[in-house]
C-alpha cells in the first residue's frame, strides 16, 4: 500500500463525510422537514470512496437511488447536496430533483437515478464517448444486487463487451433489494460477478466494507480497463446500515443483525484499526477529521434549513435548452 498520509486522511475524510451526512439525515428526516424518499448510503462508504479516489474529475460515474455516497466521493458540493435534499433553490439541482436525482456533470457525476437499472446503459454510452475523446477516461455504473436483475443491466454488459467500451460495472451487493434478499432474487447463488464473466468480461470481487481491499482490487481493474481491454466488473460485498428508505421498519432483518454488521463490518472502524496498527496515522488525527466533518455537516444543515425555497413560478423552467 503506497498511499501517502494525505491520501489516507483524505480517504477517511470522504468516508466520514458520507457517514455523518447520512446519520444526520436520518435524524433530520424524523422532523418531517425533508420530503419524498431518502435512501441512505451509510455502511457502503468504502465502496464509493475506494473507487472514486482513483478517478479523475474527467472520469464519469452513473449512480443509483442510493446516490449520496457516490456524489460525495466524486466531489459534489456537500452543502449544495444538503440544500437539494431539503428542496431548496440553492440545491445541486435547484430543488427539482431531490435526494434521488442529484447530478453534477462538472465533477463527472452523471446523475443519481430513480429507475433501478436505468444507469448501466448510460455508462456504456459515456464510455463510448470517452473512448472517442482518446484521453483514457472511463465510465462507471454503480448498481445494486437488485439492479443486477434488470434487463437493462444485462444488455449494457453485453453491449459493453461487444463494443469494447471502457465501462466498469460496479455491483454493490448489500444483500437486499428493498425487502427481498439476494439469496432469493439473484439466481446465480448470490454471485453477481459470475454474470459479468458470463457476458465475456473480467470480473473481480472485493470486501466492500474494507477501503483497502476495495482500493487495491479496483486499482487492478482500472489498469485493465485503461489499458484498452474493454469493460470489467467488480462485485463488492457490503452492508447497508439503515432501512431501504427512511421509514422502513426492516422486519426482514435477523435478530441482532444491525448490531452485528455495525460492529463487525463498519468500514470506518476497520480503516481506523488498520491505520493505527500499521502506525500510519494517529487516532487523534482522525478524531480531528471527524470534528471538522461534523462542523461541515452542521453548517450544511443550518444553511439548508435557512435557504430559500424555489420560486413556484420557475416550475416549468429548464425543460428544454430552447423551445420554439
Amino acid at each position, binding site marked *: 500500500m503506497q498511499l501517502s498520509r494525505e491520501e489516507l486522511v483524505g480517504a477517511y475524510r470522504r468516508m466520514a463525510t458520507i457517514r455523518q451526512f447520512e446519520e444526520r439525515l436520518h435524524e433530520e428526516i424524523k422532523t418531517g422537514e425533508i420530503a419524498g424518499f431518502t435512501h441512505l448510503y451509510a455502511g457502503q462508504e468504502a465502496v464509493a470512496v475506494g473507487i472514486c479516489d482513483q478517478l479523475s474529475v474527467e472520469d464519469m460515474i452513473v449512480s443509483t437511488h442510493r446516490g449520496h455516497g457516490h456524489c460525495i466521493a466524486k466531489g459534489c458540493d456537500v452543502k449544495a447536496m444538503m440544500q437539494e435534499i431539503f*428542496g431548496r433553490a440553492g440545491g445541486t439541482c435547484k430543488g*427539482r*430533483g431531490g435526494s*434521488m436525482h442529484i447530478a453534477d456533470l462538472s465533477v463527472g457525476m452523471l446523475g443519481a437515478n*430513480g429507475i433501478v437499472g436505468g444507469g448501466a446503459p448510460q455508462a456504456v454510452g459515456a464510455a463510448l464517448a470517452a473512448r472517442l475523446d482518446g484521453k483514457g477516461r472511463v465510465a462507471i455504473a454503480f448498481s445494486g444486487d437488485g439492479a443486477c436483475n434488470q434487463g437493462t443491466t444485462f444488455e449494457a454488459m453485453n453491449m459493453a463487451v461487444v463494443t469494447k467500451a471502457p465501462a466498469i460495472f460496479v455491483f454493490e451487493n448489500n444483500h437486499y433489494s428493498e*425487502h427481498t434478499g439476494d439469496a432469493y432474487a439473484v439466481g446465480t447463488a448470490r454471485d453477481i460477478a459470475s454474470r459479468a464473466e458470463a457476458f465475456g468480461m473480467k470480473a473481480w470481487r472485493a470486501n466492500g466494507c474494507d477501503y483497502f481491499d476495495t482500493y487495491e482490487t479496483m486499482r487492478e481493474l482500472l489498469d485493465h480497463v485503461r489499458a484498452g481491454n474493454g469493460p470489467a466488473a467488480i462485485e463488492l460485498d457490503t452492508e447497508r446500515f439503515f432501512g431501504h428508505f427512511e421509514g422502513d421498519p426492516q*422486519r*426482514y432483518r435477523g435478530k441482532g*443483525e444491525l448490531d452485528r454488521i455495525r460492529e463487525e463490518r463498519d468500514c470506518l472502524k476497520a480503516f481506523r484499526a488498520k491505520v493505527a496498527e500499521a502506525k500510519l496515522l494517529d487516532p487523534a488525527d482522525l478524531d480531528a477529521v471527524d470534528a471538522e466533518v461534523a462542523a461541515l455537516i452542521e453548517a450544511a444543515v443550518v444553511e439548508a434549513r435557512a435557504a430559500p425555497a424555489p420560486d413556484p413560478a420557475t416550475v416549468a423552467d429548464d425543460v428544454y435548452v430552447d423551445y420554439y
Partner: protein
Amino acid sequence: MAIMTIRDAILQTLHAEMERDPDILLLGEDVVGGNGTAGGPEAIGGIWGTSGGLYAKFGPDRVIDTPISESAIVGAAAGAALAGKRPVAELMFADFVGVSLDQIWNQIAKFRYMFGGKTRCPAVIRLVYGAGMNTAAQHSQSVYAMLTAMPGLKVVLPATPADAKGLLTEALRGDDPVMFFEHKTLYGVKGEVPDGDHRQRFGEARMVREGGDATIVTCGRMVNFSEKAADKLAADGIGCDVIDLRTTSPLDEEAILDSVEATGRLVVVDESPPRCSLAADICALVATKAFSSLKAPPELVTGPHSPIPFARELERAWVPSPQKIEAAVRRVLAAG
C-alpha cells in the same frame, strides 16, 4: 356496507377473487416481501399494503415475488394470460411502465387483434401513480393518457373504495387486459363499500354531484379536488356537475355530452401535462359532438408541460389544485 380504505378494498378484493378463481395469480416486487431474508416471506406484505396475507393463503405458486425486472414481470403476465390464467402484475410505481412498455404496448394490447380475435389476454396490470408525495420526476407521473391512447387496453382509475372494489372485481372477471391505476395519495381514503359481489361496469361514469352551471370532468385524485372547488363555488350559488370518469377506456361519452349539453360549460381536470392529454381528448370530444351547446371556450386544468418537480413548493405549483379548478370554473362562467 362496510367502511374501509381504498387500500383495504383492493386487498380484500384480491383475497376474495383469488379465493373464488384459482386461475388468478399475483406477480410483483415485494408483493410478498422478505423472501431470502432472516425475516422470511411476508415480513412485509407489499410496500403499499395491498397484498398482505395473500402469500400465506394462496402460496408461492400464486403469489410470486419477482426480481426487479419489470419487463419480465409484465411479459410473464402476458404469457400467463395467453396460457389461460388471470395474472395480476404490480408495478410498484406507474412510472416503471417505461421499463416494461414493450410488453404492454406491442404485446398485451395487440394480441387479440393481431391474432384475428382468437385469443384473450386477461392480464391486470396494477400501476401506482400520481403526484403528491414529493417523489419527483420518476415516481410521480400519471401515465394513464398514454395507455388510454393505445387500442386494446382498458384503463381504470378508482377514486373511491367502492369503485376500487367494483372496478377491480370487474377487471378480474373480464377477458381483456386492464391497466388498473391506484393513486398513491388515495390509499388511505375511506368510504362505504358494498358487501358481497360488487361489480362496477367499465365505461360508466359516476355523477359525483349535479349543479347545472358548469361541467367538471375528471378522474382519480382530481375528483376530490374538483369536489372541493365545487363546494367553494356552491357557496357563491354556482352549481357544478362533477363527473368521475372511473375508466378512460372505455369512455362514457354520453355522461360527458349529456352534462355539457345541459350546462354549456366544460372544465376538464387532469393530473398530467397538457399535450395529448386526457383533458385534450375530452375537449376534442365535446368540440366535435357538442359544439353548439358550448357557451364558452372549455378550460383545461392540467400540470404544465414539464416533468414533476421534487420540492414541496414546486410540486404544489405543478399539480392542479382546488383553487385552480375553482378559478377555471369562474372563467368559463365569465366567458358566457
